[in-house]
């Protein structure tokens, strides 16, 4: 598996093609290819863990002339997270779509989304990032439109046009970078970048484009409708992964490439926007009448947390403290990825059971679907940031970094955000525990409930108690970047 980094992209791509031709066996093809890709992604992570970051020069051309794929701690961890979520959602989807025609439409696009996610995470080239962003955007829109009702299509159209705008603004930044530095390779660029007007404008444009895609307040307006109206496995991928990889590119650019251009005040601005997103998104989630809409607003809030870390990372001295803040950011992102996907998958089960997802009418679901409500509670624990979830550690470091960086004003934001999150999560549970008739067994829809449970356990137990390796990896990454 020395070429796992290629397989992780090419296997789903081939799977997508075969599933078009051989649509009768598309579910099987998708499951197999995603499992193989999951194994390959683990191999990439293992290689990074054992021998550090590495490159794959596509076409054998050195980066600069050619394009290189690169795997380091950040990208390989997110890669494995993304493949885990995708694999679980794949199992789920094989039971979720009861209509054969819809299922046949779903798989090729789903696999294409997987390709786009993996290609994006591993890309080391600015223009290639643009192409993967477009592939990601288009496949995400197509999957949203799969619901095939008015709301979904309107959301999809908005999602598409906003996404295109974001990519074009990003591309404008890329054009300016190429004008000034004559390269598209991230690593080469990192060694060339100086703090000058061109860098600032180009960097600003790229950031703006990516902020649209990562739905940071006030550019989040397209997100709730799209995430709420897509089919459940798609919503899971959109909220857990698609938004997050945009944040990933931002981090990649900020930390690895344009760190000289970055000023404390600009990160502070993003931090403030993040803080507003936390409060506002949580508040909207609390007001939401529908389960999936609530989850979508919660995503807006959770993305906000990630941005609060930026001014902290910028203000902290290089070394252990900065690494800790960075790892905590990663941990928050990972936890949210697992938790939110588990949440959406469970919401899909509830929607299929009840025929709707109106929160006020969920009475009795705790009796009828105990495991699903359990999964919702687990992911709710992670969304609030209670132990033993990974986001508890994330918030711990968010608070401690705020003290260390002397930016105490983020702490009340965390406090209010947590309280609001508690309120919206337990509002659901309160209704779910309400009276209802039928009493189900523990496991009612195994193929849908078990993948969701696995994801929720990742968010809570595994990331909460077993993230020590993660810290090692990031420390290693920081060391490598420092050298």
């Amino acid at each position, binding site marked *: 598996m020395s*070429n796992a980094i*290629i397989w992780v992209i*090419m296997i789903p*791509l*081939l799977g*997508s*093609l075969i599933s*078009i*031709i051989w*649509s*009768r066996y598309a579910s099987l093809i998708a499951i197999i290819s995603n499992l193989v890709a999951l194994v390959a992604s683990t191999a990439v992570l293992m290689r990074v863990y054992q021998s550090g970051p590495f490159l*794959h*020069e*596509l*076409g*054998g*051309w050195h980066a*600069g*002339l*050619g*394009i290189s794929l690169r795997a380091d701690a950040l990208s390989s961890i997110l890669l494995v997270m993304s493949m885990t979520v995708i694999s679980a959602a794949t199992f789920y989807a094989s039971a979720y779509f009861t209509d*054969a*025609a819809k*299922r*046949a*439409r779903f798989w*090729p*696009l789903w696999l*294409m989304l997987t*390709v*786009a996610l993996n*290609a994006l995470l591993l890309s080391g080239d600015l*223009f*290639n990032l643009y*192409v*993967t962003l*477009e*592939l990601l955007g*288009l*496949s995400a*829109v*197509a999957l949203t*439109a*799969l619901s*095939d009702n008015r709301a979904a299509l309107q959301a999809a159209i908005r999602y598409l046009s906003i996404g295109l705008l974001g990519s074009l603004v990003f591309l*404008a930044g890329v054009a*300016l970078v*190429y*004008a*000034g*530095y*004559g*390269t598209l390779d991230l690593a080469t660029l990192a060694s060339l970048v100086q703090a*000058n*007007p*061109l860098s*600032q*404008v*180009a960097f600003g*444009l790229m950031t703006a484009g990516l902020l649209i895609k990562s739905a940071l307040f006030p550019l989040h307006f397209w997100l709730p409708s799209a995430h709420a109206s897509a089919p459940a496995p798609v919503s899971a991928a959109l909220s857990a992964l698609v938004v997050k990889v945009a944040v990933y590119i931002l981090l990649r650019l900020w930390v690895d490439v344009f760190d000289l251009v970055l000023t404390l005040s600009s990160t502070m601005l993003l931090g403030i926007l993040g803080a507003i997103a936390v409060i506002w998104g949580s508040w909207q989630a609390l007001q939401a009448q529908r389960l999936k809409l609530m989850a979508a607003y919660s995503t807006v809030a959770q993305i906000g947390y990630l941005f609060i870390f930026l001014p902290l990372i910028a203000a902290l001295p290089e070394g252990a403290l900065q690494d800790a803040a960075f790892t905590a950011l990663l941990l928050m992102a990972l936890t949210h990825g697992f938790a939110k996907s588990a949440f959406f998958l469970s919401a899909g089960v509830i929607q299929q059971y009840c025929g709707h997802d109106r929160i006020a009418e969920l009475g009795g679901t705790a009796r009828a679907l105990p495991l699903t409500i359990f999964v919702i509670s687990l992911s709710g624990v992670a969304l609030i940031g209670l132990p033993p979830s990974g986001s508890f550690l994330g918030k711990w470091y968010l608070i401690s970094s705020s003290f260390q960086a002397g930016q105490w004003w983020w702490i009340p934001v965390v406090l209010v955000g947590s309280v609001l999150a508690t309120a919206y999560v337990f509002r659901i549970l309160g209704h779910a525990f309400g009276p209802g008739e039928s009493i189900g067994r523990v496991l009612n829809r195994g193929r849908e409930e078990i993948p969701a449970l696995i994801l929720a356990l990742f968010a809570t137990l595994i990331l909460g108690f077993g993230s020590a390796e993660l810290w090692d990896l990031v420390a290693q990454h920081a060391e490598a970047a420092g050298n």
Partner: protein
Amino acid sequence: MIEILWFMVDVMLVLLLLALAWTTCSSRDVMRAVTLFIAMGLLLAIIWARLKAPDLALAEAIIGAGISGALLLSAIRDYPSTAIAVDRSPLMHSIINTFTMALTIVMSWAAWHGLNMSDGVRLSEQVASQLAVSGVSNPVTAVLLNFRAYDTLLELAVVLTAVLTVLILNDKRADSTAPGPLLQGMTRWLVPLLVVTSGYLLWVGAHAPGGAFQAGAMLAAAMILLQLAYPSIHQGFNLYLLKILLVIGIFIFVLTGLWMMSVNDDFLAFSPAHAGTLILVIETAATISIAAALTLAYIGGRPTGWEADNHGNRAMTEKGGAE
């Protein structure tokens, strides 16, 4: 002297371009806007030629203006209203105006800065030095299918995704009017010409302007024409084969890449000796897929019987359940 003349031409082209863009964007009628947009595409093709980008000029004329224009024109028919109204509040309107003006100034400044900053060489020297081992002599094709072939592969995936969406969402557009004999007569000699041109563009791409995208679009144009003239022509077409045509470009691309990886360690690392052939094979497959994709995109949805496979499947299982 000649430079001043060129510069004046440039200024005129630019002014015309900006004027066309502005009128496209501020037009109150969809039909008018689309027409102006197509005109702008053609002007862009001229500008690409002026800036010594003949590959692009071709592509813009065929794809940017041609196919996009055809898609937009046929789409207009689906819309109930053709009037464009701006319903932003005056405040919002002026905020947007101010914002874009500020952005224009800032970006212009940065562009000026960037052009002064660089030595102007960028990657062109590297391309030139490796061109000999790329398997082709047209540098743009070398970049597209060798140095940055991975981009092109993903781009084909983008095309496929878009076309899948088109197929998922809609049935084929109802055939509007019966084609006249004039169109049919014209088609009879135009289509073979287009097909031959397409083949030529594909072949010539190795050493002169042209290549898979231009050729594929040209082929698609031929198919669209055929479809317009003989609306029921596709009914005899094997749809299973059409699916294969749709994916064959990426399929061959990926398989070649993997094969080369097994030989030369890196994905898509062509051996210089065979690079030319391999690129031609990939391009041929890509041409077919692009043509199929653009044709399907134009007809606007699933041809009759597209999902028969699945429906058959469902019918069969239902039957099986009943037994």
